[in-house]
């Protein structure tokens, strides 16, 4: 199967298009995704190929169409709902948290809920506080929902396919700063990436750095800076927040004895706290320093460019955190 270089955006589009060709039960809904191809062009050409019944432009009504996604999933279809900005997950929070996540369980497993909610979020593009959240930590404490964070075109492609084929509700949190990033994607109808499990992207022996989404690239940048100073950092992409599989991270910390978690979240309530908690539990006797977290400051993301840049973790701030433990 061909390996192509493509952007994250193209990878999302490829995955959706291929899956919709494969399974007529897949329907996609969202704002402006029809003839306009989506505000981020993630649905370019799909309306023309699949028609208005399967590619549905919705009114600005997240509760309405995310709720409709649940209804469709309960009755034999496999809907994808695109949420324009992850911040808008707050609008349909009830439908997701009280409805979608709980429905199968409350029914005693009578229902299956095969739906995907894709949201595009993240900061760094000067969109301001209400259009810059990644959505990673909002639904972390909700059982019944799977949450994945693709950090590269290959992951965006493979995890979206897996999410669409999964018979359970999956929240795919995409990052707008990654939309134009390029990477190699192994295109193929059944080329899936698993929905769980972190991956070691860069092996190392002196420190473990765990990151997600746009922070993965920054962590790799930090690892490069550190290696020039003789510190060999291992970088892990957590990939999936729910369920969270801690094993490979624990294994890494057993080797390196140092842990730094990098999140585009504020500290309190960020998913990194869960990683630290589990690692301390599982690898207590292997820690040579307290685990460190690099997070957003505890205020909404400011608009002004220098302020926004200062708020986001950077390769420098990540490298500094690692060095502070050595």
């Amino acid at each position, binding site marked *: 199967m061909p390996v192509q270089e493509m952007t994250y955006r193209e990878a999302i589009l490829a995955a959706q298009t291929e899956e919709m060709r494969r399974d007529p039960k897949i329907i996609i809904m969202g704002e402006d995704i029809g003839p306009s191809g989506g505000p981020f062009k993630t649905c370019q050409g799909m309306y023309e190929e699949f028609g208005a019944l399967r590619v549905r432009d919705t009114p600005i009504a997240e509760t309405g169409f995310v709720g*409709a996604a649940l209804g*469709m999933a*309960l009755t034999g279809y496999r809907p994808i709902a695109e949420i324009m900005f992850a911040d808008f997950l707050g609008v349909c929070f009830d439908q997701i948290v009280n409805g979608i996540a709980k429905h199968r369980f409350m029914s005693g497993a009578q229902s299956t809920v095969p739906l995907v909610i894709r949201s595009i979020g993240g900061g760094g593009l000067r969109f301001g506080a209400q259009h810059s959240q990644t959505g990673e930590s909002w639904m972390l404490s909700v059982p019944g929902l799977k949450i994945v964070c693709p950090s590269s075109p290959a992951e965006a492609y493979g995890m979206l396919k897996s999410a669409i084929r999964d018979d359970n509700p999956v929240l795919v949190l995409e990052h707008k700063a990654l939309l134009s990033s390029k990477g190699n994607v192994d295109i193929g109808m059944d080329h899936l990436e698993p929905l769980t499990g972190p991956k070691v992207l860069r092996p190392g022996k002196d420190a473990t750095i765990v990151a997600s989404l746009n922070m993965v690239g920054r962590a790799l940048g930090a690892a490069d800076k550190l290696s020039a100073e003789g510190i060999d950092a291992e970088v892990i992409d957590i990939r999936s927040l729910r369920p969270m599989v801690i094993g490979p991270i624990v294994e890494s910390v057993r080797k390196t004895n140092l842990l730094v978690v990098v999140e585009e979240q504020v500290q309190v309530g960020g998913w990194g706290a869960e990683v630290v908690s589990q690692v301390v539990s599982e690898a207590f006797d292997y820690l040579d320093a307290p685990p460190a977290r690099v997070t957003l400051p505890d205020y909404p993301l400011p608009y002004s460019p220098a302020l926004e840049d200062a708020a986001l973790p950077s390769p420098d701030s990540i490298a500094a955190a690692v060095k502070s433990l050595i």
Partner: protein
Amino acid sequence: MKSPKRASGATTPKGGAKPKNGAGSNIAPLNDRERVQLFADMVQIREFEEQVHRSYLEGLVHGTTHLCQGQEAVSVGAAKALRDDDYVTYTYRGHGHCIARGMQMEPAFAELFGRATGVCGGLGGSMHLQDIDRGLIGSFGIVGAGLPVAGGAGVTAQMNGRGQVSMVFFGDGACNIGAFHEALNIAQVWKLPVLFVCENNLYGEFTRIEHTTPFEDLVKRARGYDMDAVMVDGNDVEAVYRAIAPAVARARDGGGPTFVECKTYRHRGHSRTDPAKYRPQEELEAWLKRDPIDLYRAKLAKSGVLSEKDAAKIVDKARDAAGAAAKRAAAAAWPDGNQNFTAKMFA
């Protein structure tokens, strides 16, 4: 428009069905057997709810429950218009809708009692009865949350192209929440085959409608979305059927959604812990006189379809059946604490 301060007397609805496009004329009249069945169905719901009330007092029903005595004509009249492959969504006051669609009493009681043999294995409870094989796709505890979901089932019905419809029951209180508006708007814009059946019992929880809504006739909400709307006496089971059936037929035909407002009243409080003292005594008494089961019983007796004696037999039989089902349910085992809960959550 009735005076909002009026405290006594029933709200007299503006008569029977007023469908657009004159589709009502296509609905076949009911025969006597069907009429007796409508009566028996309403009685069964009543006896089920009365038994739930008794079981609650015995400590068998946990938490709280929301009873629908007085509203049986809506559930039964609406169910009569549906096919087996239609979808139904309802609320936490949903026992009647489930029984009307054929949910068996014993597993329903068992669910309320929290037993392993309950329809949801004891995992859902009173507010979440569900029976997906009967098209009962979900009962929503959050007010209004079911309307968008019903819209989604409407999309499915539209995609399937077999003439299915999606029917959703909700109360007057839901007409003020965002989900209601988004669902009606989407259904109208996409011409979904959805029946929005509003059980207007004049009270959103403990608060009478005039304090929360600018008007009492909720069909006005639907007309705001340019949606076909019908108002009907929700305590006249045949009137409900005659109002809903044409709307269902039109939806099956691709004619889009209809809003059906059923004027009705609940005999008991909002939930089990509510003595409903906020309702004026005269109002309650006037509505109790319009008990849908009593009204229909009298009508059937008067037209010679069902004698008093036979009606009484039906009531006794339903009461005994409910009692027996509750007794069997109360003897059932509790759910296994060591079961695989993850499998209950994820397929």
